[in-house]
């Protein structure tokens, strides 16, 4: 194959350019999709929060009423607070429940069966969300399994199992524990068991090892687990809709309403961003708290 002795640098440069073109071509679909369908919608939604709506039309504007209403109305404030608190509770409980499980299958007595347990958790993660809410509503109801079971031993039926905030929290925890298990498992799986052994050998008791060695190393997973569970729980609205009753309503319900029957998108948008903003603050606080308690993990 005869190739003319061309200028070396230009042919190398040409080669680099072709490589770059391939790279851009492969990455563009993803980048374009995200920009058009993730970034842009958020921008538009944000713009709507300054708009106004009537029965007939919805338009943009420079109206701050929605925001002032969202931020000052006590009803919204209560709901926001309740959503955040519910979210934090769900997040904390889920992490507390998930951690021993994840620990057991990575560094604990069940580590030889981690595949099986992890798979089980994964399956429960994929069990449709709607179905689980339906299940809990039935379970906790007056004629639900729990009450029927209690009836066998002469107790109940209790009507306070359902249609309150506790029901919401329990249902959400049930749905979200798997979401907490995965990241915690992931970070614990990277912990070298020899480190735990070393700590034990130097005399540290179980709790001390946990506090000063294991938890810091798993901190990344713990933070991710909390964040995921909290974010999903705080913004949820289907669960409160079905098992929350009147006391259990959360901000998500109101937001959903604005985009449904109430047709007040601008207000809904302002509320949504307020919620997201508050959630961001909480996550930041959590990370700060973790750092304060010296639960920072390996330096990144």
């Amino acid at each position: 194959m005869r190739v003319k002795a061309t200028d070396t640098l230009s042919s190398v440069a040409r080669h680099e350019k072709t490589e770059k073109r391939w790279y851009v071509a492969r990455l563009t679909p993803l980048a374009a999709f995200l920009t058009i369908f993730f970034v842009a919608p958020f921008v538009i939604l944000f713009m709507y929060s300054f708009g106004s709506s009537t029965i007939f039309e919805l338009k943009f504007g420079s109206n701050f009423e929605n925001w002032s209403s969202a931020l000052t109305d006590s009803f919204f404030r209560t709901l926001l607070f309740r959503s955040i608190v519910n979210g934090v509770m769900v997040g904390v409980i889920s992490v507390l429940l998930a951690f021993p499980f994840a620990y057991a299958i990575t560094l604990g007595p069940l580590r030889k069966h981690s595949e099986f347990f992890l798979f089980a958790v994964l399956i429960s993660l994929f069990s449709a969300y709607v179905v689980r809410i339906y299940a809990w509503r039935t379970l906790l109801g007056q004629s639900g399994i729990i009450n029927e079971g209690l009836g066998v031993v002469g107790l109940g039926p209790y009507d306070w199992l359902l249609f309150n905030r506790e029901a919401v929290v329990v249902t959400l925890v049930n749905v979200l524990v798997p979401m907490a298990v995965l990241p915690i498992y992931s970070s614990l799986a990277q912990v070298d068991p020899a480190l735990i052994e070393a700590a034990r050998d130097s005399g540290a008791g179980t709790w001390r090892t946990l506090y000063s060695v294991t938890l810091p190393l798993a901190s990344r997973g713990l933070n991710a687990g909390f964040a995921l569970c909290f974010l999903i729980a705080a913004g949820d609205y289907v669960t409160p809709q079905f098992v929350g009753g009147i006391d259990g309503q959360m901000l998500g319900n109101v937001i959903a309403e604005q985009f449904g029957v109430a047709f007040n998108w601008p207000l809904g948008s302002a509320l949504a961003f307020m919620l997201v903003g508050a959630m961001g603050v909480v996550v930041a606080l959590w990370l700060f708290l973790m750092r304060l308690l010296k639960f920072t993990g390996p330096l990144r």
Partner: protein
Amino acid sequence: MVEDQGLTAGFPAVSVRGLRRSFGAIQALRGVDLDVAAGEFVSILGPSGCGKTTLLRIIGGFEFADEGRVLVDGNDLSGVPAHKRPVNTVFQRYALFPHKTVGENIGFALWVARHKKADIKARVSEMLRLVRLEGYEDRAPSKLSGGQAQRVALARALVSHPKVLLLDEPLAALDLKLRQAMHFELRRIQAAVGSTFIYVTHDQEEALTMSDRIVLMNGGQIEQIGSPIQVYSNPATRFVSEFIGEVNLLAGEVAVVGDERDGSVSIGVQSGNTKIVVPHGSTVDVGTPAWTSVRPEQMSIAPLSTLLPAATNRLEGVLESSVFLGAFIRHLVRLRDGQMVVVQSGVQGQFLTMQPSTEVAIDWSDSVGVLLCE
């Protein structure tokens, strides 16, 4: 540009001119020039990080030099991508396609070039016969031993009869006996195929066994090119003399130039207390610091008490230890000024009975030894 030693007449199969390559702050190649003749087996030898692998990858087209050119058969391939070069590579960990059979692996290059099925089949069988793996066409790569996988990788690279074959430390993962057997296999195969082989390794024994010529690289530069005998007997630099085989380097200063014996130099060693004579062709100034390189097997050792008349070069010292290595003995001697020297002797009685702490004399002829100034 390093002076070529012993290049046989003929159009170079591979030529490399002025190659430079840096990775950030690290200079992997600092201006490399090399000519490889058609049909040669050339080894590029050097320690890790010397740039040998980078050089190979640039010739193969997997990386590109910042400056310089690569020519194959006179064609400038500098900017040509790997898949268009008439150069094939055998990778260190073979990189066999796990989802294809041995036969499909070997025939891959032909399949890509859209040869007829029958032709491919015939050539694959021919290759399998060449590497002594007849009947392995339908085997899965995961079911091969290390040595077999290596031979399949070789067959795969040779099936399209490339002009040049690049081998990147292909025997590194094999055990010693297998490696030594493969040394002969590789030379046999090369002779049968006739391609030019460029072989990268850090193992000097490998290079010495197989190569027509050895290219020694260090710190991104070529230090010497020559046949195995040349680089062993006439190392051009300290690095080469230390890298190939074992060597004693005696520090000293040029004392007298052009002794009565023509073409030799007298060096003051042992802090000037003793003089030794080293053959040396070119001129060198008095007072220049110099290293004298003498191989352990070129020296002889005897207790001072049994002193024979001094042959020519003699140094005195104390025996520290002797290690019996089967075919020979390795003696470690501490000279008067503290420098350590290794002497190799046979296994005759007098060498076996020498005790540590004996005062000994080390002799060697004044017609051996290499002077290295730098």
